C-alpha cells in the first residue's frame, strides 16, 4: 500500500488538486436540489425539485439572466471583431507605432479589474453619463478586447504564411486569399476568443458593479442576494449554464479532432 502510494504520489496529488478545483462546482449543483430551511441555501436540508420546476418564480432572477445574456452577446460580437482586427494588424504588419499599440492592448491585462471599473466610473461620472445597460456593455467590450488579441495572436503567430503566399501565386486576389485561406485557418482561434469573451462578460462582477447603475445582471443579482440568502433557483441557472458551456467545449473539441486528419494530409 505504502509502496503503491509512493509510486503514484504525483497521480494522487494531481487528482486531489483537480477534485479541489471541481468541489465548489459540485456544491453549487447539489444545492440546486436543496430545499433550504431558512433563507441561506448553504447547508443541505431536504431533496427537492422545486427550484428546477419553477426557475423564474422570482422574476428578477430570470430578467437578470436575460440582461446578462444580451450584454454577453453584444460584447462577444463587438469585442471579438475589434480584437481580431487588432491582432491581424499587430501580428501581420510592421508599422510605425507598433510597440506603443502593443502596450496599450496589453496594459488592461496587467491592471486589476477594480481599477478598470473605478476609472470607467470616474470617467462616466465626469461626463455625467447615465449608468446602465450601455455603460456595462462598453466596459465589458473594453476588457474583452485584450483577451481576444491574446488568443487570436497565438493562433496567427503559429500560422504558416506560405499557404497564403501559395494562394496569391495561384492568382487569388487579396480578398479571396483572406476569405478562403486566412480566415478558415484563423477561425479556431477566433471561435475560442469569442467563447472566452462571452464567458468573461457573462460572469463579470467586479467591473460591472462600478458601472451598472440600477441595471441588474446575473452576477449583480447574486451579489445582492448573497447577504440575505441566494435562492436555489440561482444554482439551477448556474448549473444549466455550466452544463451548456461544457457541452459546447466538448463539441468544439470533437470538431477540432475530427478535422485534424484532413488538414494533415
Amino acid at each position, binding site marked *: 500500500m505504502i509502496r503503491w502510494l509512493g509510486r503514484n504520489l*504525483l497521480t494522487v*496529488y*494531481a487528482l486531489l*488538486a*483537480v477534485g*479541489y*478545483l*471541481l468541489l*465548489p*462546482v459540485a*456544491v*453549487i449543483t447539489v*444545492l440546486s436540489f436543496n430545499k433550504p430551511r431558512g433563507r441561506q441555501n*448553504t*447547508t443541505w436540508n431536504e431533496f427537492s425539485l422545486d427550484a428546477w420546476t419553477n426557475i423564474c418564480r422570482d422574476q428578477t432572477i430570470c430578467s437578470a439572466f436575460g440582461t446578462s445574456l444580451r450584454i454577453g452577446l453584444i460584447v462577444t460580437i463587438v469585442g471579438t*471583431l*475589434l480584437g481580431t*482586427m*487588432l491582432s*491581424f*494588424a*499587430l501580428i501581420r*504588419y510592421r*508599422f510605425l507605432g*507598433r510597440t506603443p*499599440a502593443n502596450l*496599450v492592448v*496589453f*496594459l*488592461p491585462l*496587467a*491592471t*486589476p479589474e*477594480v*481599477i*478598470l471599473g*473605478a*476609472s*470607467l466610473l*470616474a*470617467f462616466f461620472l*465626469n461626463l455625467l453619463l447615465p449608468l446602465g445597460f450601455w455603460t456595462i456593455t*462598453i466596459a465589458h467590450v*473594453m476588457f474583452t*478586447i485584450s483577451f481576444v*488579441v491574446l488568443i487570436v495572436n497565438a493562433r496567427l503567430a503559429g500560422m504558416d504564411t506560405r499557404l497564403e503566399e501559395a494562394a496569391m501565386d495561384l492568382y487569388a486576389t*487579396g480578398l479571396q486569399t483572406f476569405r478562403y485561406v486566412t480566415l478558415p485557418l484563423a477561425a479556431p482561434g477566433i471561435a475560442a476568443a469569442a467563447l472566452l469573451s462571452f*464567458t468573461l462578460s457573462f*460572469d463579470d*462582477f467586479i467591473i460591472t458593479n*462600478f458601472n451598472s447603475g440600477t441595471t441588474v445582471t*446575473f452576477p449583480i443579482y*447574486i*451579489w445582492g442576494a*448573497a447577504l440575505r440568502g*441566494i435562492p436555489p433557483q440561482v*444554482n439551477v441557472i*448556474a448549473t444549466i449554464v*455550466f452544463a451548456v458551456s*461544457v457541452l459546447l467545449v466538448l463539441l468544439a473539441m470533437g470538431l477540432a479532432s475530427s478535422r485534424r486528419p484532413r488538414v494533415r494530409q
Partner: protein
Amino acid sequence: MRRRSTPYLLLLPGMAWLGFFFLIPLASLLATSLQRPLGPSTEDGFAPALEFTNYSAALLAYWPQFLKSFAFAGLASLIGLLIAFPLAYFIAFRAGRWRMLMLVLVVLPLFSSFLLRTNAWKTLLSSEGFIVETLNALALLPDDRVLNTPIAVIAGLTYNFLPFLVLPIYASLDRIDKAVVEAAADLYATAAARLRTVILPLAAPGVLSGVLLTFIPAAGDYINAQLLGSIQDKMIGNVIQSQFIIVRDYPTASALSFMFMVTILVLVLLYIRRVGTRELV
C-alpha cells in the same frame, strides 16, 4: 493587400475603444483623485483642483488594507504554486492520453459563476463541515473556525485563480524537449537534480506569468474578502469599492485606486526584472 494604411485601418476601432474607455478613464481617475470637496457632505459634489493631500490622507487611513491585499495575494500565489506546479507537471509529463481531459477539468470551474463558487466555500468551510471538523480534531485551527477569518479569504483567493496558475506552467512544461531531460538522466542527474537544474529553469516563464495572472487579480479582488472574511479582513478592493459606490467619496477612492495601480505596476516590473525573462511581453 500590403498597402501602408491597412494596419492603421485595422487598428483604428480597437485602439479608439481602448483610448476612450481605458486610457482617458485612467486620466479621469487621476483628475478625480485631485478634486476638492465643495462641502462637508459628499452630496455637495467636488470641484477640479490639485489636492495632493488626498493621497496622504487616503494612505494614512487605509494602509492596513493595502498591506493586507499584498499579503493575501502573495500567500494565495505561493500556496497556489504548491498546488499548481505538481498538477501541471503531472499533466505535461505523466497524464498520457488523459492529458486533454485533465486540461479541460482544470478550466471547467471557469464556466461556473465566480460568485457562486466563492459562496460555495461557505458551505465547504462551515464549522459543521467535514474540512473544519477534521482540522479541529487535529487541533490545527487557532480559532476553531475558518469562515470569517483571513484563512478563508486566502483559501478563496487561492482557489479562484488556480486555473490561471496551472495553464501557463503547463504550457512551459509542455514545451520542454524531453531529450534534454533524458540527457540529464543519462549524465547521472537524480530526479531531484533534474527537476532543479533542468525542468524548473525551463518552466520559469510559465511560473512567472502564472504568478502574475494570480497575484494581480487577487490583490484587487473584493469578492472573497466580502463573502468569506470578517470586517477586519477587508482588502484594498473592498475599500475602493465602498468608497466609490456606497460612501461616494470619489477623490479618496480615486487616490486609493491610483496608488494601488502604481504599486502593482512597480511590483510587477520589479518581479519581472528579478525573475528575468525575455519571453514575456
